[in-house]
């Protein structure tokens, strides 16, 4: 143990803090670094998918595969930036941005009916048929003033979700 042999200098910490828009305190960044080193067992500088999947709690999350695509192979700076949406200091806009990115898997800036269906499929598995999913989505979209053919952009997500009272916070254990 003790992979954190490459210690973080003050300069490194400040650089990381800047990159994540000061959403984590310096102590939290140090704690995240030791966690990063713990997960990155072979000290490659990034955490592979396999190493993420060895966290049982992560592995059994229905959205683990989508998140893996976003977080696989990130270096520490980007890893902290990825997690910054979950900081208690993050604004609702930043959280909604994160959610948008999860939906927008190909990064084109728009979410189609197909993307919504895919995420719903991840969340419900085999317990809802494809027709049921399409029906549900179609129904709620129409009620909200959209249709199956509409494309949702970030502004739409902002409109829909900003009243939802998002609770998306994670506590970084600082010893």
């Amino acid at each position, binding site marked *: *143990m*003790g992979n954190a042999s490459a210690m973080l200098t003050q300069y490194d910490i400040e650089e990381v803090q800047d990159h994540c828009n000061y959403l984590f305190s310096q102590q939290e960044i140090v704690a*995240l670094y030791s*966690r990063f080193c*713990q997960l990155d*067992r072979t000290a490659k500088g990034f955490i592979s998918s396999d190493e*993420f*999947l*060895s*966290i*049982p*709690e*992560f*592995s*059994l*999350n*229905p*959205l*683990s595969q989508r*998140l893996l695509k976003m*977080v696989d192979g990130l270096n520490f700076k980007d890893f902290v930036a990825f*997690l910054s*949406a*979950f900081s208690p200091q993050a604004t609702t806009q930043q*959280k909604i941005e*994160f*959610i948008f990115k*999860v*939906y927008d898997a190909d990064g084109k800036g728009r979410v189609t009916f197909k993307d*919504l269906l895919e*995420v*719903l499929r991840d*969340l*419900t*598995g*085999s*317990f*809802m048929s494809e027709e*049921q999913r399409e029906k*549900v*989505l179609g*129904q*709620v*979209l129409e*009620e*909200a003033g959209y249709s199956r053919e509409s494309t949702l952009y970030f502004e739409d*997500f902002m409109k*829909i*979700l900003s*009243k*939802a*009272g*998002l*609770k*998306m*916070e*994670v*506590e*970084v*254990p600082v010893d």
Partner: protein
Amino acid sequence: MNQRVGTDSSPLRFAACESASIPLFATFIGARRRAPPARTHRQIGSQLVGRRILAAMGGLDSSSMETDLDRPNIEEYLTTETIREVPKKLHLSDLLDISPTLTEAAGAIVDDSFTRCFKSNSPEPWNWNIYLFPLWCLGVVVRYGILFPASFSWLVSLSNLISCMFCRVGVLALGWIVFFAAFLPVHFLIRGHDKWRRKIERKLVEMMCSVFVASWTGVIKYHGPRPSRRPQQVFVANHTSMIDFIILEQMTAFAVIMQKHPGWVGFIQKTILESVGCIWFNRTESKDREVVATKIREHTQGVDNNPLLIFPEGTCVNNHYTVMFKKGAFELGCAVCPVAIKYNKIFVDAFWNSKKQSFTTHLAQLMTSWAVVCDVWYLEPQYIRPGEIPIEFAERVRDMISVRAGLKKVPWDGYLKYFRPSPKLTERKQQIFAESVLKRLEEK
């Protein structure tokens, strides 16, 4: 819907566990990321649900998807104000809002209770000042240079042999020589008188373990009555390293259940430990379980067999936590005698991180530190209570051991170190979500 998770309106009941508003999700593992001492009712409730599910999922062999879990009624942990059962109409924002799932995933990335069990803490550097550093250097010289010197020097002269008597490797080497000198003749020559042979072999193994313990300057305090040799009893202990077995064996010759290892350890397993009646298993073979279960049962019936020692965690844990106990040892219908082992970390960290070091390296590390200090408590034999199922019995015994040794309990199966969690757990979450969506859809 399955009895276990609740019926009729309970998806939302569990969903309500997590926060005051009604998300569509029931999160099983709990919102808090640390292993906390003080928890709210909601969190206890959701953790209990998690434990129930995980306990029910248990081992990962195809044969072992148990469906026989009955835990104490979870409703007693949910206070009425947290249960708001009003299903509201479904909106687009509800479907789009995946924040609970994302929070769980991020929380698992940041800190999870499973990896914590296998973390060996690097010791704090205490020697970096002008006064302590020379002392530390002296200590290194003594530990590596005097306590641990190579055993080849005893070949040189008798006087060196005597000086090495005080040195660890020398002690160990001498011990092995004496052991084999006595063991081999006894094992091969005394064929007819089995009872005597086994008695002598038992004593020899005990002696060899004492030599091992002496070679690391083990200071071990035993509390409680010594185990007695009776049929229909099984000993269970928490597991930190293979030396647990040696420490316990020093006092009483146990028959232990061990993973088959390669190398010199495997050789010792085959030759010596078979004589005390040890049973081997192989984690990677799924059919292995039934074979081992049969062997265990036979062993406990036999009158003259050594008492059986089982480590129900199934893997080495870092002596701060206990992972879930496998129920195999608890469904034999005999007395279960718990043994709690706690190492004192000030002297050496006895946790054997089998992914990071081989057993030889681990032993060498032990032999080059000052001492191995630990406490062993033999606790009162437990019997399964009427109406209790083996998993509950296992949890009760785990409670006893954890309390006695000051360890925290974690609701994970130790085998997750080697295997991925069963997809059934993910499916459970999906099922809850799907059903609540469909239900809310019907609300007008």
